């Protein structure tokens, strides 16, 4: 199963990035093989519609679950249509989030957790 974690760096030791569409890196981990692919977010500087594009990228990469801090309505809609589960509210290191997910018990979101454009604000 492929899981994507939004990160501030390209390693599993990196801190998570709280934003989905405007995160620094998408770390895509194959839970079976343990392989990790780091994709530098190509939409980081986009003016609009980045959530849609990032959601599309997840579908193309055959990701099944996204772990992130917050997610906007367009990204959530795209992921949902692609049958991809979203779990928000995670913080700390990527590896910690991954362990938490593997232990189970994390509940997938039923709707977006942030408003449009909120990823554009500094934090």
């Amino acid at each position, binding site marked *: 199963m492929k899981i994507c974690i939004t990160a501030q760096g390209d390693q599993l030791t990196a801190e998570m990035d709280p934003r989905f569409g405007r995160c620094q890196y998408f770390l895509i981990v194959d839970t079976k093989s343990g392989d990790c692919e780091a994709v530098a977010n190509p939409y980081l500087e*986009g003016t*609009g*519609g*980045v959530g*849609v*594009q990032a*959601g*599309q990228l997840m*579908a193309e990469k055959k990701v099944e679950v996204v772990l992130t801090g917050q997610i906007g309505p*367009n990204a959530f*809609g*795209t992921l949902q*249509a*692609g049958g991809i589960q979203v779990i928000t509210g995670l913080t700390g290191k990527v590896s910690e989030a991954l362990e938490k997910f593997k232990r189970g018990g994390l509940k997938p979101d039923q709707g977006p957790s942030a408003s*449009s454009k909120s990823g554009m604000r500094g934090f």
Partner: protein
Amino acid sequence: MIVTIASGKGGTGKTTIAANLALLISNAQLLDCDVEEPNAHFFLKPEIKTSRKVFVRVPVIDESKCTFCGRCQKLCAFHALAVLPSKVLLFPELCHSCGVCSHFCPEHAISEEDREIGFVEIGSRGQLQFIRGLLNVGESMAPPLIREVKSYLNPTRTNIIDAPPGTACSMVESVRGSDYCLLVTEPTPFGLNDLKLATKVITEMKIPAGVVINRCDLGTEDVRKFCEQESIPVLMEIPFRREIAAAYAQGDLLLEKMPEYRPSFKKLWERIENFAAEGAA
């Protein structure tokens, strides 16, 4: 003639200037292009005669014909479409109605339909013609509605446009095609910062501009210094007075409540006419 009243910063007094100028000059019409929160009608209290809904075109995807090839999504410059393995999603608020998706769909699976974004109202107050647009709540596509308001520009009248604040698409759309742009500001750091941004936009658009400094006895000299440096004429200064604020809060027109400001508004209009004529020459 078209004169637009704009500003980088909000709340500097655009509507006060626009509404009072419209009242002062003969054969005028006021177009309130601040379609997200129009307020000129609070002061002018026009009698509205007609109201018309405004629509934009958005794509409709026939999924029985769609092969999910992704061509529409790749061509959409605004990322309003997401093509997933067995579903196409449209994000109507991102769509700019360019028509590229329907034109280039290899399966002819995309048609277009109307989406309502707001309405335009037309009315009058005595001799003064009044037009305003109101964008539906939650809607982000202001420019198409502004274009609709501006379709009522009348070359036989003096057109005063009340622009939305800021320097984004909706401001550019409002100012476009003006003979003159009046930038209303205040002598505060916010006022100066946003005046600088607005000046850049107006210079880029090659529209002659002048400045009105509202609440001129507050703050610092920095706005005046900036105008001098950039050779932008300061056409009028309005003092910070409790009575002006009170009249505004009551929805009263400054010139009706305090006719002593009439001469300075008259002078402002003469200067605008002169500069606009210079700009056209």
